[in-house]
């Protein structure tokens, strides 16, 4: 009886957690969580917004990537999707929403207008949202197809994968203290 229990101890020393333990780095774990629950802040300003809505709907189904939780409050959002023409009248409102989003945050310029002003070379249109806020991913198209937006969001995921999140947090913390 005793000898048989000894031999089981050697093969499975703790059957309750055996197979449930994963060894990884904190950075990798954090990045994995961040990239698979990207909550977008939709900034629908023109026709690109229609494609963005289609992306979120069942045919293209953004929720396959964990991005379906469109947050209409910037306080709860991770990624700002600027989809459409940014007029000068709207520009500072977009900037304000970006400022209200908590770190870490990413920005996508969706379509020609948000990236560069597009065909609107005029007095009324900001020539690219990157003049006001930092952009992580630019998506070409006028408007881009939903597949393109999904690819853009996956590019953001790729970017998140490579980030050193705890190092970054440490750096910003010490910068804040100093």
């Amino acid at each position, binding site marked *: 009886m005793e000898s048989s229990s000894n031999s089981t101890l050697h093969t499975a020393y703790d059957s309750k957690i055996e197979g449930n333990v994963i060894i990884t780095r904190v950075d990798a774990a954090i990045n994995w969580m961040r990239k698979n629950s990207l909550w977008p802040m939709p900034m629908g300003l023109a026709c690109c917004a229609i494609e963005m809505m289609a992306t979120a709907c069942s045919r293209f189904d953004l929720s396959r990537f964990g991005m379906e939780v469109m947050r209409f409050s910037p306080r709860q959002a991770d990624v700002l999707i600027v989809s459409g023409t940014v007029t*000068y009248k709207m*520009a*500072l409102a977009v900037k304000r929403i970006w400022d209200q989003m908590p770190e870490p945050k990413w920005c996508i310029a969706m379509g020609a207008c948000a990236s560069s002003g597009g065909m*609107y*070379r*005029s*007095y*009324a249109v*900001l*020539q690219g949202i990157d003049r006001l806020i930092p952009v992580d991913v630019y998506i070409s198209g006028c408007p881009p197809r939903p597949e393109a937006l999904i690819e853009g969001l996956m590019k953001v995921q790729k970017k998140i994968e490579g980030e050193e999140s705890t190092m970054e947090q440490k750096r910003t913390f010490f910068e804040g203290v100093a």
Partner: protein
Amino acid sequence: MSAINDVTRLQEAFGAKILKTVEFRGEHTLHVDAAALHEVLAECRNRLGYEMLLDVSSLDHFGDDPRFEMVYEIASLDDSKHLRVKAAFSEEEKVPSVTDLWAGADWHEREVWDMMGIPFSGHPNLKRILMWEGYPFFPLRKDFPLAGRPSEMPDVAFSGVAPLEGGPFVTCAGGEDTVRREPRARVLE
């Protein structure tokens, strides 16, 4: 029934104040003396059955005097007749508002003020409608560059100059071939 009867009635009633009438493919246009504009429009609205103001627009004849021209498109509700009324105004003059005749003129006139900088007298709420209050230019005037001009209002808005890269781009209808009809940068004289 078209507006032809009304044109003759208005000519009889206002005489020399109606400067010119134009008929083109069934469309009737009245050129009216600026001082009589409101009177004529009131007559159209109250007596002749033009209950609907379709559009108010303005033209900038830059370099001419009078510089601006107002255009009113009016129609009857049953859509049986349309009439276009035009009047010229110099830069110093105020245009009499027609908001007392058609309530719908309110936003049209605000747009004319915003884009062209033509002031109206008797308008209940004459402020900018598309650009922000405090924007210093009138962008649809002929002497305003297409690329825009820089302006700055802290915490409200700012504007910059758009890169035109050789533009504005134009096409000429009726060119010899399609290649020539492609958009081309206008060569500045």
